[in-house]
């Protein structure tokens, strides 16, 4: 059996078709936080889908990242309900506090910030999701506190 760096042997053995492209990409991203170029080659080898096709899939779906994210992935919801409840202000605040201008990731690699269309927690908006934790009913003050807490936690361990 061929040894793959990104995909475990038993998973590779079960994944011989185009239909497995997205699940495999998801497995890689879950483990590494992003999809490295070599992983795309491995998936192409396993599923027999062309590298270019897989690359087109990676860039089509918002979930996939081609660069490693920060330790904390901050997803700011800009769905209708959050938008009506002023999520734009929170985005400006977060960008400001974390000094993000041209990049979506902080220099220290601690935070990556992205806006998402809807996290489905509309009735407690505005909402952000940090990794898998959802924080709702946010105000600028709470967001500042949260960022500080994560900053401390991130540098602590």
């Amino acid at each position: 059996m061929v040894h793959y760096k990104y995909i475990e042997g038993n998973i590779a053995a079960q994944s011989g078709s185009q239909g497995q492209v997205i699940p495999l990409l998801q497995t890689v991203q879950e483990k590494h936080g992003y999809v490295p170029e070599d992983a795309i080659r491995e998936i192409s080898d396993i599923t027999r889908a062309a590298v270019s096709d897989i690359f087109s899939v990676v860039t089509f779906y918002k979930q996939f990242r081609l660069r490693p994210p920060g330790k904390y992935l901050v997803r700011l919801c800009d769905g209708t309900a959050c938008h009506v409840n002023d999520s734009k202000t929170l985005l400006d605040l977060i960008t400001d506090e974390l000094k993000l201008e041209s990049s979506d990731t902080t220099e220290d690699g601690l935070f990556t910030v992205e806006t998402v269309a809807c996290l489905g927690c509309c009735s407690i908006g505005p909402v952000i999701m940090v990794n898998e934790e959802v924080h709702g009913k946010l105000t600028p003050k709470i967001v500042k506190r949260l960022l500080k807490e994560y900053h401390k936690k991130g540098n602590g361990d």
Partner: protein
Amino acid sequence: MAKTITVGMATCGVSAGAEKVLGSLKSLADVHKHIPLNIGTTGCIGMCYREPLVEINDGTHRYLYADVTEEKLKSIFENHVLGNTPVDEWLILRDYQSGTEFDFLRKQAKIVLRNCGFIDPDSLDDYIARDGYQAIKKALTEMTPEEVIEVITKSGLRGRGGGGFPTGMKWKFARQSPGTDKYVICNADEGDPGAFMDRSALEGDPHSVLEGMMICGYAIGASHGYVYCRAEYPMAVRRLKHSIKVLEGKNMLGDNMFGTNFSFHVKVKEGAGAFVCGEETALISSIEGKRGTPKVRPPYPAVRGLWGKPTNINNVETFANVPWIVLNGGEKFAAMGTEKSKGSKVFAIAGKAKRTGLVEVPMGISIKEIVFDVCGGIKGDRKFKAVQMGGPSGGCIPSSHADTKIDYEEIMKLGAIMGSGGMIVMDETTCMVEMARFFLQFTQNESCGKCTSCRIGTLRMLEILERIVAGEGREEDIATLEHLSGYIKQASSCGLGLTAPNPVLTTLKYFREEYESHIRDKRCLSHSCPALVQFLINPDKCTGCTLCAKGCPSKAITGEKKKPHLINQDLCIKCGKCHTTCNFDAIYKD
């Protein structure tokens, strides 16, 4: 009798702190080991605005407490659990029949959400105790597939994902399609911003959706099913996978289910973040591992769907209705609602209503009843302006049409659509032009790029709207918007493009004066668009803390310490930073 204490643990509850409450409940129970207690968790009961929720069931009565914190729980535990005296102060419902929040439930009719908030979603026994899997047993042992389809047709159930296509007819087409390999797909790619009905149903009662899929599989002759679920809903995915595993272990899913010769397998596929995948053919492409671009129909999925085989796709809510209909009969379902819209509809209420959360109301109820009777009116008693229904494919219905009944055709007459169930309530402070811009930005972002009219047309419309909101609108803009809308609606191939102009068209229809005042007078009637308002300081509220002055990027704020400050309008760049920094609510927009 041992008391049962249940904590609501859907996403809303957890983010409001339900995990901490559950933790301290468990440690309190540990301290009082001599008292027999059952501690459980449940899904969403719909009252997202009062989470975390804790229910105490003493065997004869059920008490629901709201906004529970660790401290409140301590007191509730001492007084109610140990002392048998309910703490009235935080009690909102008794037996779901009376209490301060009973108005929220009074006009609701629960079919889809019949179990949500009443069962532990991870417990198969809980679901079975509430007639779970009786419908599939009935179908398998007492009915032919044609009879199942007949019941669904009679019920008048229509697709709850937004399209409103009669479910019975859809199943019939899939059944009639020749071939032995067929597929059932549950569309759980709930992408409309402002909608969370499917998330709550999957988190609160995954089994009812799975049972609906099994019944559909039997009816159309399929032995494989997929749930295509948004990756943004990790809890729903987890609960679905867990439920499937439990069912497989009990021979209630898989080969020869329930000892019959019917076999059905279900797999969960996680979406990867593309709104367009809510469209049937795009969803199929995505399961096949490709880019989620829609295909031209016909052939419809019922003829040529997943892997080229006949496929039936229904939404989560549609499937959740099915077991109830099979058990109770199509007539009982059809007795609810209007002539052409039967049964109930789940709405996710968000925005400026007092009570926000999940409601399930009978079809035929008016928008006014939902906003005022069920949801208690508008926060801060401001003026009700409009509801937005159907997300980026839908439109705004103004308060002047608040008597409109919830009915597929009635809503469509107004230029909006029933949609999947997102209902955003807006008050006088919401700018409708900005709202239209918001939705256009969404569709522009999510356009898959296949049709030029959608890819480029929505971009041109967005540019115009951005200009108007920024106070740089031109006289001809409204006409251009209308002109482009017509083209996009004519020339796009899938639902995304066909409906993309709706938010603009409905706001132009009902709130044209807002567009005009943005363009001609450079004023935002709702005092909301930053570029068209002035930021001012209320000297009565300003304490002179200097926080705003320190943070102002253009040094437009001046004033002495401990004295009211002033904003120099010539220097102000209207970034709104002072508005968010102020701790005393002293800065306002005009």
